[in-house]
Every structure is written in C-alpha cells, then in structure tokens.
C-alpha cells in the first residue's frame, strides 16, 4: 500500500532512502525496488545455493530456489558442480520435475529434448526437422555463469565477471573456517535435509535480524525462561560479546569473548566434555593443544550477504519470492567425524528452527509483523542508529559494536547501497 503513497520527502534515490542512522520503509515494500534488487543483487553478486554434500555422487542433482529462479544443482560425471536454470531451450518448458535424484541427463517431456547434467543439449528427436544432429549449437539449458564453493558451500553468480567468491567472502571466510575447525575431520556436511519456512516478509528483515543482538532477550525470552538457557545473557547490556561488521555486507555476533571468559569447552554447545567424550577425544587427538580453544570458542554466528546465515549449529538459506515474501531454508550442521555431536545437532535444530521451531517461529512472527508494520505510513523510517556512538575498530580494521548494537545492519546497508547504486 505504501507504494500507492510514495513518501513526500524522498526522491527515491538510494542515497536518500538509506542514511547513516535510518532507512526508509519503502525499501521493504516497493515492488520496483525489489525488481532492482533482483537485477543488481540477487542476479549479480554471489548467492548461496546449497552444499556439495547434498550431491555427493557423480550425477547427483537437487533442485533449488535461486531467488525467483527454479534451478538444479548438479554434479557432473567428472564431479564438477553446475547450477542449471530449469528451462528448456526449445519452447521454454520446465524440464526437471523431481526434487532430487541421480542422472547424467535431463529429458524434457514436451518434445523429448535431452540435456547433459552440465546443461549442454544432448539430443532432439526427429532431428531431420533441424537438418540432422548437432545443428542447434548454442542451445542448452541456462547455466549460471559462475559457480564456486568454499568448504562445500556452493555459491552462484549470474554475473559473468566480478569479484571472485573468495573476494566476496572476504573475512567471512574465516568464520566458515571456524565452523569447519570444529570437525575432527575438518569437514562440514549439510545433508540432514532442509526445512522450508514460508515467510510473508521482505528478505532484508531476515538478513538484518540474523545478527541483531538486541532482540533475543525479548523475542526468545519465553524459551530461554522455561529452559533456563544462558543464551539470553550473551545478548545483554553486560555481555562482552561484540557485533562486527565484516565488510561486503557480512556481519557477525562474535560470542567468543563470553565463552573465553568462562573457558569451558563445549559450553557454546550447552554441554560439557563429559557428555560428549568421543567427540572431545577426537578433537584433542587431531588438534592437540589447539583443540581446547576451538571447543571453548565454538561455532560462528555469521550472516553472509545476502542470504547465508550460519547460526552456530544451524545453517539458513534465505531466498526471496516477492517484495513481501521469502523462504527460509534451514538445516543442522553436521561435522565430519562427530556422530555424537551430529545427532544432538539434529535434535536441537528440530527444536529450534523451521515452521514449528521454538526459536525461529517467533523470529518469523516478528518478520511478518515487521512487514505489516512498514506498510503503515508514519513514522516512515526505520532507526538503525543503535551503538553508533560507541563503535570502535578492531585490530583488523573492522567496525565493532556491543553485543546488542546495530553495527551489523549498518554494514549491511552500506554494502546494499553500493550495489544498488552500481
């Protein structure tokens, strides 16, 4: 509705809509802006698609959502990963209708054209109609031009050129390393399935919320209270945890200061070494002196722009459907060589995330109330000034704020604006 009532005092340029301490509500509700986001962000920058462990074998494939696009993440005969757009080069039919499987090729049901799982056109029936075989060079299923992965996390970019994935990840890369570093085998799998949570909210409310350390005590007080969880304390005024803007729109809640303070291995996981002896043993074996640090500091809590959120033991893939709707795909982290932990992570994740999760269902309620709220006309702005007055720069030159500060959001908007104005 606000799109019917453009704000009187802004011209709509991103410089006016996005300011140091506030953001205009229309960026969450204007369909034109969403269309521009598709072109300038979702179909240009690196977007998280899935994990290699979902397609372990040659010729495995799984269908995925890539913003508004229906894509297939495939592993070809040689093991290379591709992201294909699910559209036939003949008359544009949706080619693949299975959610996942194993096949070296795809066949379109309409006229029987077939494609290699890397997208090339393999054959077309009655080829005389085209003057014989091999006469349709250049036709094939759409292949997302750039696909790359890090620690098995597969990202895709629709832009033929641009920053590499490593450049895009920048310092967020280290957070993925931290996660992998909790595996005795140095590997992570995301093969426990994905929950699919429909959210009637603009995708940015999710991205901003992921490292918003201000909300947990309020939104999640109900579960913290009944379970006696210590999590709330990590996001309080007295917490030593910091919120860090990692550049390129990435941000994290760095909880290590709190965990170091206690210095208790596995506290980050809400348990003790005694309760997971096998795991602790393997970690000590593999990492020796450094094992304790790893088990004390725990997993990262990082939002990787625009759509990958690693929340310690869960991973979220956020994909937009429309200006006011998106999907949260969530799963449990599974660490190579840690069966003991993995089962617990599955169980905890089921309790926490997804449509009925005791944490995420409440976040999602906020996202949806937020979307309804910004349809209202006054006040027009969202405030993001929290912590602006007490930010500092860390040893690596990153801006950091207190545990409950909006430092991450400001980093998000800085990068968002740079992309939208590009």
């Amino acid at each position, binding site marked *: 509705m606000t799109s019917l009532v453009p704000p009187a005092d802004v011209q709509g340029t991103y410089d006016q809509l996005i300011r140091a301490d506030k953001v205009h509500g229309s960026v969450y509700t204007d369909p034109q802006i969403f269309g521009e986001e598709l072109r300038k962000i979702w179909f240009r920058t690196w977007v998280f698609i899935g994990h290699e462990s979902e397609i372990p074998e040659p010729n495995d494939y799984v269908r995925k959502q890539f913003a508004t696009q229906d894509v297939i993440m495939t592993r070809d005969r040689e093991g290379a990963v591709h992201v294909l757009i699910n559209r036939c080069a003949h008359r544009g039919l949706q080619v693949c209708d299975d*959610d996942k499987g194993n096949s070296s090729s795809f066949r379109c049901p309409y006229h029987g054209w077939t494609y290699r799982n890397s997208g090339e056109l393999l054959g077309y029936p009655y080829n005389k109609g085209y003057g014989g075989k091999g006469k349709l060079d250049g036709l094939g299923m759409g292949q997302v031009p750039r696909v790359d992965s890090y620690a098995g996390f597969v990202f895709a970019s629709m832009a033929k050129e641009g920053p590499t994935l490593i450049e895009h990840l920048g310092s967020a890369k280290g957070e993925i390393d931290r996660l992998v570093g909790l595996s005795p085998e140095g590997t992570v799998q995301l093969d*426990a*399935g*994905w*929950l*699919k*949570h*429909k959210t009637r909210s603009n995708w940015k409310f999710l991205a901003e919320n992921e*490292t*918003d*350390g201000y*909300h947990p005590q309020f939104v999640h*007080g*109900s*579960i*913290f209270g*009944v*379970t*006696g*969880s*210590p*999590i709330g304390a990590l*996001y309080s005024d007295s917490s030593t945890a910091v919120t860090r803007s990692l550049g390129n729109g990435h941000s994290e*809640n760095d909880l290590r200061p709190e965990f170091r303070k206690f210095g208790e291995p596995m506290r980050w*996981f*809400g*348990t003790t070494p005694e309760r997971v002896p096998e795991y602790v043993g393997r970690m000590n074996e593999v990492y020796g002196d450094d094992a304790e640090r790893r088990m004390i500091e*725990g997993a990262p*809590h990082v939002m990787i722009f625009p759509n990958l*959120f690693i929340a*310690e*033991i*869960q991973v*979220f893939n956020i994909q937009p459907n429309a200006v006011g709707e998106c999907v949260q795909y*969530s*799963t*449990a982290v599974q660490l190579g060589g840690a069966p003991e932990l*993995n*089962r*617990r992570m*599955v*169980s*905890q*994740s*089921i*309790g*926490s*995330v*997804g*449509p*009925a999760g*005791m*944490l*995420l*269902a409440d976040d*999602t*309620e*906020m996202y*949806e109330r937020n979307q*309804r709220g910004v349809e209202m006309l006054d006040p027009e702005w969202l405030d993001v000034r929290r912590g602006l007055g007490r930010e500092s720069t860390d040893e690596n030159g990153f801006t950091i704020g207190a545990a409950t500060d909006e430092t991450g959001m400001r980093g998000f908007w800085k990068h968002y604006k740079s992309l939208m104005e590009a």
Partner: protein
Amino acid sequence: MTETAAPLAASAATEAPDPDALGPVPDGWDVREVEQYLYREARLADENDYDAWEALWTDDAIYWVPGDDLTADPTRNVSIIFDNRSRISTRMKQVKTGKRYAQAPPSNLRRLISNVELLGGRANGDGGVDLEIGANFIVFESRQRGNTIWGGRTTYRLRREGDQIRLAYKKVVLVDHDKVVPTLGFLV
C-alpha cells in the same frame, strides 16, 4: 537470528517406528470409542487447553511432523516437529508463558478428524501392544497472518493405562509436507 538451542537438546533417541511391525488390531477397542477420544484430543488442541492436552501423552510419547522426505530417519534428518515427552513438556511451558509470539495471540482453530480406521497393533516398549489408527484431517486456522487451511494424514497410537486411554504416538503428515509451509505454531 537463531541461538544455540542447547537447552533444547532433549535426547530424541527414540527410534522411528518400524513400519513392518504392524500386527492385528488388538482386542477391546471400538471405533466409536476411539473416535470420541480423537475428537477430544482435537478439541483440546483447538481450544489451546495445553495442560489437558499434555496429560494425554504416555511417558514414551513421540509427536512427529515430518518434513519433505518421508523416508528420512528423524534422528538423523530434520523434521518440522519430533518431540519426545520432555520436549512436548518444554513446548507447552513455552506457549504457556504467553510470550511464544508465534502463538501469542493464539490462532483460532477448528479441525475435522475423519476417515478414522483402526489399522492394527504395534508392539510397544512396555511389552504391550498399542492400537494404531489412521485418520485424515483438515485444520482451519485463523490469525492475523490470514486464514490457513492445513490438511493431512495422522497416524495415532493409543494405549490403555489403567482405565485411561493414553496417546503414545502421533505422526502428522501434511499433504504439502514437501512444499514451503508457513509458521505452524499451533498443536497440529
């Protein structure tokens, strides 16, 4: 954002049921009695009578709402809900705080339970045999988000404990379990 849900780590070690173990319908059960029991369970859920609803469950309860892969082992793969007795209890405690925002304010609900069939007997951990029942349902949910109609198939297991009938197992498969679903905050 999501926090490490450590306190939620209730062990869900209970194995998924072996689908092959279904025996004949145990004696002493009448469809009419079963229907009335299921209607009551439905009414307690519809009316958010959390204590009475929780009291229906056995100690080895399993309350399961699978996600997209119905063949998946719920101890190794994510489900929408996979609660043992202690997590059912946690879930009830949370919603009773009145600050479980996904259900505060609560949904208005009414559900229809139909096509009730006694499917057979299933050996339970107590050496007894639970009655396994199949039924279809539609839930009409209304909240500020809008109205949502949920539909699916429920497999129940009932057990007699003294003069009580108890609910040992409830598996709810949504018709669109393989699709994207909105927040499921109520007791389905």
